């Protein structure tokens, strides 16, 4: 197993959160590596170091998608992953979820973990709402009452309890997204990996969902979340921010540092336009 950031005293999760990532240096592993940690004695819930991911085209050309990405999300915090379209945010999230194997680098994520896709039609697999929320619990050996209780709580958290028996095809895009989130919340996981959850939601639903996730993170269970978004107004709910560009992590820090970084970036852009 490659050394991870939390293992080093000088690179503790709190210091990682404050410093720009480039100053930390990278710890590249010679081979791809995934590990999942079920214990809670580590301070970082999500860790990745030197993550590279590339795809090979039909012509045999290797196209790098992720380039030497290192990140650390502490336990019990909600972090946002920002960046322009096509910069590799969703790919990084899929690598962290274990859906893609990195070409290089190592990944350590606490277990159990849940991943919510950008398109709810890809996430929702059962024909009715309550059955879909309960689907993720199928891997545990739970009693029907426990499942029912978990499903009801999760649906209540996203304001969908009254739709529990509705067929999925009768729901709107936003409602489907909330069902997908409820499915993740019902699993009582330690890590939530959320890919542009609020894309299909209006302002009211957006607020409802983000508060539901924030409540989940703030609960005593020490749940951590990494949230991919384009909506900067959601930053006020975040504990930390990671900014990506062209497959690289160019900023990794707290919200104030991220706001300064974005303002600086905006100013540079305006200067470039001579406005």
């Amino acid at each position: 197993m490659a050394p991870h950031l939390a293992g080093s005293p000088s690179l503790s999760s709190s210091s990682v959160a404050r410093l720009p990532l480039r100053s930390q240096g990278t710890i590249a592993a010679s081979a791809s590596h995934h590990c999942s940690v079920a214990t809670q004695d580590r301070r970082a819930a999500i860790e990745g170091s030197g993550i590279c991911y590339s795809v090979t085209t039909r012509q045999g050309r290797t196209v790098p998608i992720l380039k030497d990405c290192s990140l650390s999300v502490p336990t019990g915090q909600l972090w946002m992953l920002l960046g322009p379209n096509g910069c590799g945010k969703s790919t990084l999230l899929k690598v962290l979820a274990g859906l893609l194997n990195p070409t290089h680098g190592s990944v350590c994520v606490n277990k159990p973990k849940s991943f919510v896709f950008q398109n709810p039609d890809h996430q929702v697999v059962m024909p009715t709402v309550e059955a879909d929320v309960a689907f993720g619990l199928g891997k545990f050996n739970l009693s029907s009452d426990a499942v029912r209780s978990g499903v009801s709580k999760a649906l209540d958290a996203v304001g969908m309890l009254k739709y529990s028996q509705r067929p999925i095809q009768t729901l709107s895009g936003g409602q489907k997204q909330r069902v997908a989130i409820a499915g993740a919340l019902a699993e009582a996981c330690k890590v939530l990996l959320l890919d542009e959850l609020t894309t299909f939601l209006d302002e009211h639903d957006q607020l409802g969902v983000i508060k539901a996730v924030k409540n989940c993170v703030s609960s005593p269970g020490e749940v951590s979340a990494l949230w991919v978004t384009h909506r900067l107004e959601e930053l006020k709910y975040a504990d930390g921010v990671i900014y990506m560009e062209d497959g690289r992590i160019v900023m990794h820090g707290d919200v104030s540092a991220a706001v300064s970084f974005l303002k600086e970036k905006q100013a540079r852009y305006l200067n470039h336009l001579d406005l």
Partner: protein
Amino acid sequence: MSSSTLLYPSFLSSLNPNPNALRFSHSSIFDPSRLIFAGFPKLGAIVVKKRTPLNCFAAQQPHNEGTPSKGWESWIRHGAISPERILRVIAGATSSPICQFIESPRTLLHSVDPRIKLIWLLALVILPARSNIYIRFGLVGYLSILSISVLPTQIWMDQLGRVALLSGILFVMLGFGTDSVPALLQSRTPPPSLIGLPDIPSSLSGYSYLIMKLGPLQLTRKGLSLASTSACLSFTIFQSASLCLTTTTPEQLASALRWFMVPFTVLRVPVAEIILTLLLSLRFINLVFDEVRNAALGIVARRINWKQLTVMESLDVFFMYTHRIFKNIFNHAEQISKAMIARGFRGDSAKHKIYFFHDSSNGFINILSLFCLFGLICAAVLLERTFI
């Protein structure tokens, strides 16, 4: 003479629905001065002489000249089957499958155990095929009354309307079609009057094989039996399935099916896999509907001028449309399989528990529905024995 305006013969007008639009603008290899357009037998007089550019316009033929002014094309409503119209119909269709579960208002049927509903479904398939005509029509009446009393007005009108139309067509066609052409198809035996034998004596009890005669059509006992069986069977199958689907969630149906299939696990039937596949299929149906609709909407939104496309180009668009639908569906399937993995499914259906919630079942209503089913079967058996 470079161009001519001609009175067109009727056979040419029959090739084009709009004769005014017919125009030859390419070079002609014949001399139009030799043409006599009074009627097409004279066209045999066409003599190839020299290349002369010809623009040929068809003048509108008066409708009152006695000659047929409209050809077969006039029978087809203009634009009724244009690609634009077809795609618009597809794009505007609902994404919801027919007879989907209706959560509210909750009815008595919502409270019946899904296993009992499946037994009822089986009974309603077997009984119309095996029982007396009175039972058949009784079942149709019973299902109609049940639908009207249980379902919201719009739903039962829609469902019963469609099923009644289908069954009605079947009844009329089979009833009158079974024995209406016997001379051509059946009998080669000469009638009794020709061979000198006396006619078969008529029934003393008033029995008559022929029930009704409408010109060349006749309704016989055989026709009535066949028509009533087919029509009632169609009605009961479609309507009972509709009633069941509108009052039962897909998960409840799957759980009932699993209950019946569990004994087959002894024979190594992959019951868990079948049930999971069934549930995924039920989820996937509306995704397919969505894909078909969205792809059609995408083509309609591009406002293709179909009139400018050749037949091959139009077919090409339709092939692209089909290709896109399949590509998107396979993409969906891939993404859903990824989501299942992300949600903890490891490929073994037996190890991944599917939870079914049964809070809607009511003991009294279950017993009542079983009692009714038993009564119906007894009545069918008794009537069958009585009439035999």
